[in-house]
């Protein structure tokens, strides 16, 4: 069967022939000074007067101000990715403490983000492993340049300043966390699927009897009628998808760390089912581990994996080589 010729392609558009560009403009008045548009030249360059040397108070908005504002609540050190393995309990003295077991599987530093280049300080962390065939070409090139095997999961952890950045390729083990320190755990909650108003938002529902007919768990009215706008206000709580959204549990205590098993035990429950990938980082509302411990942890990183910088350099060179090969191959084809 021959391919069908699209009939409409050849026909010229009516508007393209007859209308000049000015006629194509919408008839709604949207072009004018009060809509934020003017033909006049800009009246001044306000940045000229807002320099730090002008003797004005520091700006309270903008990227620098935002970083300053968040300084105290940004952790000093990077967090890690882990997999929720289940819950158990341990006895501390007489008291029984329930805890969640998190396994850190091949947690590595992938990249650092800097204030100069990206606008903030952060560490990119990877977890687990992925087969090369299940990774896209751009990402394969990314890992190639880092000298790291493809990861199952990537995440970014903001840190306060330059001190928090780590050497690329360093593997973080559970003793990155100090026994007894506090961490914030962030994970997606269990997905509940499409849920009604009673389950999703805790609505009261309707009565079982007194003439009620087939409306026992419905949400009822969604707003006033004529006079109240005759519309449903945006954000009205209604039935819909419930769960599977990021939830943070703050200030969980680290009860146990085990490098051999690769586990961190934190007190209490955390969101999500077993097997969920979670993010844990030093608590933003509690004190970070003391300076000697932080220094020791960094020293241990160096001891366990010496020469990370050289490895990275080698990987970069290898990446350039492979890139040239790929480009040559493309040119041939």
């Amino acid at each position, binding site marked *: 069967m021959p391919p069908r010729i699209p009939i409409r392609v050849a026909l010229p558009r009516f508007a393209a022939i007859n209308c000049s560009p000015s006629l194509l403009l919408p008839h709604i008045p949207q072009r004018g000074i009060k809509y934020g548009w003017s033909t006049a030249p800009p009246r001044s360059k306000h940045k000229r007067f807002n320099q730090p040397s002008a003797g004005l108070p520091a700006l309270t908005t903008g990227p620098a101000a935002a970083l300053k504002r968040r300084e105290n609540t940004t952790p000093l050190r990077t967090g890690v990715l882990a997999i929720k*393995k*289940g819950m*158990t*309990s*341990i*006895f501390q*003295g*007489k008291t*029984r403490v329930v805890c969640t*077991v998190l*396994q*850190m*599987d*091949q947690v*590595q530093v992938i990249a650092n983000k800097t204030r100069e280049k990206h606008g903030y300080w952060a560490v990119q962390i990877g977890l*687990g*492993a992925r087969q*090369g*065939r299940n990774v896209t*070409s751009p990402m*394969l*090139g990314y*890992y*190639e340049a880092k*000298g*790291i*095997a*493809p990861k199952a999961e990537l995440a970014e952890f903001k840190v306060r300043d330059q001190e928090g950045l780590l050497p690329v390729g360093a*593997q973080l083990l559970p003793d990155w966390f100090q026994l007894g320190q506090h961490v914030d755990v962030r994970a997606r909650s269990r997905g509940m699927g499409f849920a009604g108003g009673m389950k999703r938002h805790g609505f009261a529902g309707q009565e079982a009897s007194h003439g009620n007919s087939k409306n026992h768990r419905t949400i009822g009215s969604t707003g006033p009628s004529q006079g109240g706008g005759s519309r449903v206000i945006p954000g009205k709580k209604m039935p819909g998808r419930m769960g599977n959204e990021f939830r943070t549990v703050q200030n969980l205590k680290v009860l146990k760390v*085990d490098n*051999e*098993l*690769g*586990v961190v*035990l934190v007190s209490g429950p955390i969101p999500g089912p077993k097997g969920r990938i979670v993010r844990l980082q030093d608590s933003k509302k509690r004190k970070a581990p003391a300076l000697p411990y932080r220094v020791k942890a960094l020293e241990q990183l160096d001891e366990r994996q010496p020469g990370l910088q050289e490895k990275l350099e080698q*990987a970069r060179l*290898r*990446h350039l080589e*492979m890139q040239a*090969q*790929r480009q040559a*191959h493309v040119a041939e084809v």
Partner: protein
Amino acid sequence: MNAAVARQSMGCLKAALRRTRYQKTWQRCLATEAASPSTASITKNAYSQRQHMDKQKVSKFQIWPQVPSPRATHPDPMPTLKQQEIARLDPTGARTRLFSRDHADSAKVGDVLMVTTKAGEPFSGAFIQMRRRGVDTAILLRGQLMKTGVETWFKIYSPTVTGIDIIWRKPKRARRARLTFMRKPKHDMGSVDNLVSAWKKERYALRSKAKQGGGKQIRR
């Protein structure tokens, strides 16, 4: 007469239909049997288009070796962790043995147990139910306080539980895992104080006998 004939003919039709149906399935079986081995032998060693593309893609990149993973050595850390905690709380393994399934002389539901805690008086009652959860393994005892039925859960590995004794063994094995029927007035065991006092008396007698025996040995 007419009706019977009609029924007979219907029966014939039914049988004939059944026969054709069987034949059909038989043919279908043969057809698939004949077709499957030839296709399988061709595709077994060949890559699909997609697999080929994947291999080609991967071959263009350097893939670096992986760092050591605890997932390889300990895919599931939970049993190990539970065992570690049990070993810490019960170094002699006495508690594990007392409630193990493998020993005939372990405590079984239906027995009367006495749990001594650091907190206060020992609590004794019928062993109604057991919840086996590794370190969190717990037992439910139903006793009586001030003529009121009282049930209490005890974590068997808890450091606050200093001792668990079997006061009385049920002569016949309980045929339920959970003896919830013992809450009903008809089956309620009521107070177990008489059993406890009998057990204490017996134990006292045994102890004194042992002492006497020991004394004799010293004399010799």
